């Protein structure tokens, strides 16, 4: 085939024609309902804990622990990835996504040993979130401090 340009032209045409359209509405709906459901459930937990006499911050911290525990358990049982496959951002954005990323990495790399496997790779997915999450909150903190000085 001497005419690669012709091959490329036919490829670009065929690729554009055959490109599947991502089901945005279906994904959006699933993310909205599941993500929203997780938030409603978390709020229910906070209200319940408050009714037991906890302060708001105590109840909120306990709720986080409960949601992380449930996520970790579902991940270990091999169920969370099936939920995540449907829910997408709905389970990935709340703290469930963070917990899942750490537990799944820990399970995954246990095969390479406790130190270099599990220890070295547990934060493989969550690591970037921590690095840039902490860095950006630090930057925002400084900006806020300077704002307070001026105001």
């Amino acid at each position, binding site marked *: *085939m001497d005419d690669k340009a*012709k*091959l*490329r032209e*036919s*490829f*670009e*045409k*065929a*690729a554009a*024609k*055959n*490109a*599947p*359209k*991502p*089901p945005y509405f279906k*994904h959006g709906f699933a993310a909205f309902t599941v993500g929203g459901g997780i938030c409603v459930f978390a709020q229910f937990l906070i209200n319940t804990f408050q009714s037991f006499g906890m302060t708001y911050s105590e109840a909120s911290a306990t709720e986080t622990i409960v949601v992380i525990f449930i996520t970790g358990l579902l*991940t*270990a049982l*091999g169920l*969370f*990835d*099936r*939920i*995540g*496959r449907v*829910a*997408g*951002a709905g*389970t*990935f954005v709340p703290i*469930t*996504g963070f917990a*899942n*990323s750490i*537990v*799944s*990495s820990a*399970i*995954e*790399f246990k*095969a390479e040993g406790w130190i270099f496997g599990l220890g070295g790779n547990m934060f*493989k*997915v969550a690591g970037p979130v921590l690095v840039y999450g902490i860095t950006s909150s630090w930057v925002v903190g400084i900006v806020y401090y300077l704002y307070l000085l001026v105001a």
Partner: protein
Amino acid sequence: MARKVGEQTVYFDNKITIAEVSSAVGPMEGNGPLGKDFDLVFEDDCLGESTFEKGECMMLRKCVENLLRKGKFTQSDIDLIIGGDLLNQIITTTFAAENFDMMYWGVYSACSSFSEALQIASTAIEAGVVKRAVACSSSHFSTAERQYRNPLELGSQSKATAQRTATASGAVVLQAGGSGPVITGMTIGKIIDFDRKDAADMGTAMAPAAAHTILTHFKDTNTSFADYDMVYTGDLAKVGLGILSDMLKMHGYDPSGRLNDCGHMLFDCVKQHADCGGSGAGCSSSVFCGHIFPKLKNKELGRILFVPTGALLSTVSSYQKNSIPCIAHAVVIENKKDKK
């Protein structure tokens, strides 16, 4: 001696026969549309081993052991074992080959490793370097997922173009002479890279490589789809197969009814949640050994062009934002009564 025709095609003078085949697959492939065609279906995709990597290695080992048993060969009957897989430093093939007292060549051509192994083994037999060789390839969903993508239990959504790596192995015995389907020629692929960078859309990236090899083969040999009962690609899956078909039509060849893809046949994509279809080095070899070879043997198919495709990327090249170099190697396999 082998004769080169045209740009990239070679005909063999010796009768390079596929004497025996063997296939082994995991549970999901076993439940798929071709499930009944495979020799060995393992319900446990770890095969009782402690890790997925060891499980994949055991799957390939059992596949080759089954091959020798089926063909009534002893290890000393085979000169050479040649094969490849997807894992770094092709550990599956190497650690499986360790169990066999044969000369060993490891090859890597991603999902087209099987056709590269067939081509090199055929060349070696044609040249008289070896008399009989085993060519094989393997892939495993869980080991590939670990190496190329995310942890298995990570709850992430797959893209609309994603494919599922097949948990599968396939192996064949090639020999000079004897009865059975014959490898009469091959077209060695060239790397085609049309600047696709999405590692979750390899069907699209590989389609032009398949088109290039098929078109070159047709031109070199002055043939067309009419001269083949079927043309099988390796793992283009739904999207890639559609692109290839359209491309071939634009270049004046009508593939209707004579073009299919191993990855497209392996799974019931909707029912089995297999995205666009199967992929992986074991996809083409297992489907060839389990599904296509029996049809050649009983002469339901007289002449096929088998064109596994490979996406030659790595996680490093992806992270460094390189485009995906792709390749397709073709072999012509015939089983005609009136063979010279």
